[in-house]
């Protein structure tokens, strides 16, 4: 067997071992556990309370927009903090870079505002 | 494109390039004609096809009889990065096929009315002519492949657009079968060019590749098989013939005629030009097998033709039989057999072309091709029956007509090197008489029904259209010398090339006793 194939053999053995282990665990569990299904046991478990309604519950879409906007500006903050600690080192170059960065993000905010996303109707 | 082709100043008029360009220009002109004038399409197309035909006659006149090599060559650089040139030339083997292509297309354009959409019909036929010219003239493997493949598209469109009920199936089968054959040929073409280059610049020049013979025996044999696969499908040789009856039967008359007269010849021509010429050793190696397939084609085609109920299908299967003869002739490797093979390509084009035209005319009158529904046509249409008889007798190979000359040469030439093959193939001649005469008897003799009584005889136009075929049939039967003397130098050249590059030696044609000196190579099987 060539060196190349042998190095792949390791991968293969890992794969086989993974499948065998998962398979063994599931099989053993299946053999050992008693199986007496009742209607009660088969319904979805929700904190000990019987579930109400379907599992595709709707939530207010507006929260989603806010979540997206929050993530956006959160990222902005993440970028600004490390920049701020080294501001002196970066000098004018860093200032301009950050200005461009903030400008583009502000443009996004402005666009969102103009599109009426920020209004809670 | 135009500029590219005419850029190089050639000493004489580059007539071979003109052959390819004129029909293309014609197709463009037809496409640009206004749709409101449908009656203009076919005449304009026929004029361009006829100009190309006239050029092909000019090629014939310019052709030097004694020169065995390629004549009127024209080379232009095309894709220098890949070593590809636009290289065309004509020799004794391709000359008559070019003339046949040049003459058949205008006749077909005049003869057959497509009934609908005349513009694309005319344009496709012209492109078919251009592609066929290109395939017969190409001396660059790349150019040949381009032309060999491109002719599929017009034929596909003709079958699909103007064919009969089952045209979808037939057209697709035709296209895919032929494309499948040529798929591996492309790999072989590139392999031959790459492996022959040997560090030098890569070339697809057929003449140079044939001279170099740089491939090892096994590689050459593999490449040869890839080429052969493409060509035997095109010929077609049994067992890869099944596309042919469908394509012929479903194609419109014009498609059938061009398919039989011109396109099938691409297969046999390819075997000669690219099989024998490029791979002499491999050809000798594979000759017994291919000759056997040819003979099987002769017998099988004849037997199946006997059992056909449809007149057009019968003619289609007779094509399989005739092409089998040609394959036998090619792989017998003697001067006569090769000459006969080349001549038979022309003969088959004339006789089968005429038969397909007439079956088409019959269909126009009666809207049926079933043999059982036709009877006693002779009394209603005596001239038609007469014309049909001549074409049929030529197809059978009756002495005095062209078919006899070709088949006789093939048989006499093959007898020297492939005796038993020849004996079996000779029975094919008898079978041809059987199925054609029997069909003739059922269709033209007997008691005409009321429908048969009303079958109109040939009109003047139809008679004029058929006359060139009949003149050719009789002329070649009586006086084939003009053809043979041009074919012979090229054929002898090919055989000596074969002898130079393999252990094959042609038996002395004059010697009364046949010595099979290529015994060693045959025993490989």
């Amino acid at each position, binding site marked *: 067997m060539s060196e190349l194939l042998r190095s792949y053999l390791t991968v293969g053995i890992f794969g086989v071992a993974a499948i065998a282990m998962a398979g063994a665990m599931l099989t053993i569990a299946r053999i050992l556990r008693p199986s007496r299904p009742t209607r009660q046991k088969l319904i979805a478990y929700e904190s000990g309370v019987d579930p109400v309604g379907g599992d595709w519950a709707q939530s207010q879409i507006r929260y989603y927009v806010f979540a997206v906007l929050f993530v956006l500006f959160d990222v902005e903050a993440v970028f600004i903090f490390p920049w701020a600690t080294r501001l002196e080192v970066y000098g004018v170059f860093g200032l301009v870079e950050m200005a461009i960065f903030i400008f583009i993000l502000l443009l996004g905010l402005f666009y969102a505002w103009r599109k009426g996303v920020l209004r809670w109707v | 494109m135009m500029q590219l082709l005419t850029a190089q100043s050639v000493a004489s008029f580059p007539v071979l390039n003109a052959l390819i360009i004129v029909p293309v220009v014609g197709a463009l002109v037809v496409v640009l004609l206004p749709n409101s004038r449908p009656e203009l399409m076919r005449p304009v197309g026929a004029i361009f096809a006829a100009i190309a035909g006239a050029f092909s006659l000019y090629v014939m006149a310019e052709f030097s009889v004694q020169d065995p090599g390629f004549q009127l060559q024209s080379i232009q650089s095309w894709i220098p990065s890949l070593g590809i040139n636009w290289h065309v030339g004509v020799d004794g083997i391709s000359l008559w096929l070019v003339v046949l292509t040049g003459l058949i297309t205008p006749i077909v354009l005049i003869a057959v009315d497509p009934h609908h959409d005349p513009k694309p019909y005319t344009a496709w036929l012209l492109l078919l002519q251009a592609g066929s010219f290109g395939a017969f003239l190409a001396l660059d493997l790349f150019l040949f492949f381009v032309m060999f493949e491109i002719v599929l598209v017009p034929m596909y469109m003709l079958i699909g657009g103007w064919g009969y009920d089952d045209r979808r199936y037939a057209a697709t089968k035709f296209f895919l079968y032929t*494309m499948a054959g040529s798929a591996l040929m492309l790999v072989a073409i590139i392999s031959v060019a790459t492996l022959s280059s040997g560090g030098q610049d890569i070339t697809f020049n057929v003449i140079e590749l044939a001279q170099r013979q740089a491939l090892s025996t096994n590689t050459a044999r593999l490449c040869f098989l890839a080429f052969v696969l493409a060509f035997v499908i095109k010929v077609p040789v049994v067992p890869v013939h099944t596309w042919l009856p469908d394509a012929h039967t479903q194609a419109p008359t014009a498609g059938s005629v061009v398919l039989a007269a011109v396109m099938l010849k691409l297969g046999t021509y390819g075997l000669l030009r690219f099989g024998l010429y490029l791979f002499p050793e491999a050809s000798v190696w594979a000759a017994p097998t291919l000759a056997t397939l040819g003979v099987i084609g002769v017998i099988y085609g004849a037997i199946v033709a006997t059992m056909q109920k449809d007149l057009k299908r019968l003619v289609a299967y007779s094509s399989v039989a005739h092409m089998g003869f040609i394959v036998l002739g090619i792989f017998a490797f003697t001067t006569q057999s090769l000459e006969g093979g080349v001549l038979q390509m022309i003969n088959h084009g004339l006789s089968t072309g005429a038969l397909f035209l007439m079956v088409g005319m019959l269909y126009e009158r009666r809207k049926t091709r079933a043999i059982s529904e036709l009877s006693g046509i002779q009394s209603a249409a005596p001239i038609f029956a007469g014309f049909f008889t001549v074409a049929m007798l030529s197809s059978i190979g009756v002495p005095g007509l062209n078919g006899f000359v070709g088949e006789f040469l093939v048989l006499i030439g093959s007898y020297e090197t492939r005796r038993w093959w020849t004996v079996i193939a000779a029975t094919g001649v008898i079978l041809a008489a059987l199925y054609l005469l029997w069909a003739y008897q059922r269709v033209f003799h007997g008691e005409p029904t009321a429908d048969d009584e009303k079958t109109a005889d040939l009109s003047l136009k139809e008679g004029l259209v058929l006359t060139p075929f009949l003149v050719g049939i009789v002329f070649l039967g009586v006086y084939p010398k003009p053809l043979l003397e041009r074919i012979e130098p090229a054929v002898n050249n090919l055989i000596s090339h074969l002898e130079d590059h393999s252990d094959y030696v042609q038996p002395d044609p004059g010697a009364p006793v046949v010595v099979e000196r290529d015994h060693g190579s045959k025993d490989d099987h």
Partner: protein
Amino acid sequence: MGSLQLVGFVGPSVNWWALLPQIILLGAALAVLLVSALAPQRASTVFTTVTTLCAALTSFVVALGLWSDVKADGPSSSIASAFGVDGFSIFFTVLILIGLATTALLSHGYLDREEMDPPEFHALLLCSAAGAIVMASANDLIVMFLGLEALSIGIYVMIAMHHRRSEARESAIKYFVLGAFSSAFLLYGIALTYGATGSTNLVHIRSYLDAVVFQDQHLLMAAMALLLVGLSFKVAAAPFHFWAPDVYQGAPSPVTGWMASIAKAAGFAALLRIFFAAFASHDVDWAPIVGALAVITLVIGSVMAILQTDIKRMLAFSSVSHAGYVLVAVHSASATGTSAALFYLFTYTLMVLGSFAIVGAMGPDDEHPLSRYTGLGRSRPVIAIGFTVLLLAQAGIPTTSGFIAKFQVIAAAVESESYFIAGVSMVTAVIGAFMYLRIVMAMYVVDEGEEGPRPIWHWTTSVVVLAAVGFTIIVGLVPQFLIEFARDAVPVLVRG
């Protein structure tokens, strides 16, 4: 603060010219958004389309300037060797800009017809194009990944923009989830590459691999495998192709065209730059795997294509099989193979954009049954013949660019003595041809009296189709110029 020593910051030298093409595109994207936000009424389609076209044209001129620089001074790189300026990057920049202009033209009629919001679409398209250019030019795996994400995120949203159609949303989700999945593979591969070679910079990786012989190269092998998987997803190579038919079918047709052409081309650009340029010394390791992928892709693409009934799904599988041809060229791991791959991508892009232009104009995107094309040859002969040319070109019939492309791919395979793969690619070409013939057949073979469809066309679509068909035929007849361009565009890694 006093203890902190202030050291003057010296940034890497930046060749702004080299970055200008994508800066122009991003600037145009911002401008489109800003104007549409400021404008009192809805921004018109004409404005956005013209802006995009102008941006593409300006970038194009800059790219041509860069090309002459490269011709004169040789390839270079910028921003600490992270961004390459060579024939390769400019080849793809030109290709992507052509794709951008085409897609902008195609979307023009489409956005109006489907009542979609033009500024957002165009802004995303411009960002996506800039990402693709970055991806093709990046000499650093991290930068390449940034480009890939910019390209992909734009596409995710563009697919979903048709918000009234659930198919569009479905395909957007599918593409997003699988795209994120493949990005993870790619990132993992980048991380392992860093582990194996100590750098994410392709120039450094190349010189490291050239100099060092590994005693144990498991890590590098795993890295290459993961990179290959990640990029195979992006170019829709089997067995990582299964998203393609669903996504192509559900997406708006101009976006499908963009995905099938430019997203694929950018993916291959990354693949070639990483494997052919950076991992060149280990081609013995990766070339066989790429060859196997190529064979699987060719077979699956062509066989599955003939089983489809929906035109967009057919074209999706055909684009899978085209990825297979490019992989055959990549497999040969030679300059010939790479330029064959580039030639193939260039011609294929035009073919597929033209095809999807026609598909998009034929009617709404809900489904594209074959019957929609019945009789098109009679009712709209010019469109039908154009579509026929594009389809036959994809089947590789001579006198079209597709044939020259296939020819070069086969030649590259033969040159590297991969006869089996060359044979497989030709045989699958025949299988695939059946599918193209079915479409051609539907257009031309009609029964008496059957009337064909008469789709409403915007003139921009005609321009695109005409250009695509013209290009396909011209390159099919006189391909020399494009072959030379592709030969000059083999990637070069230069420290800068």
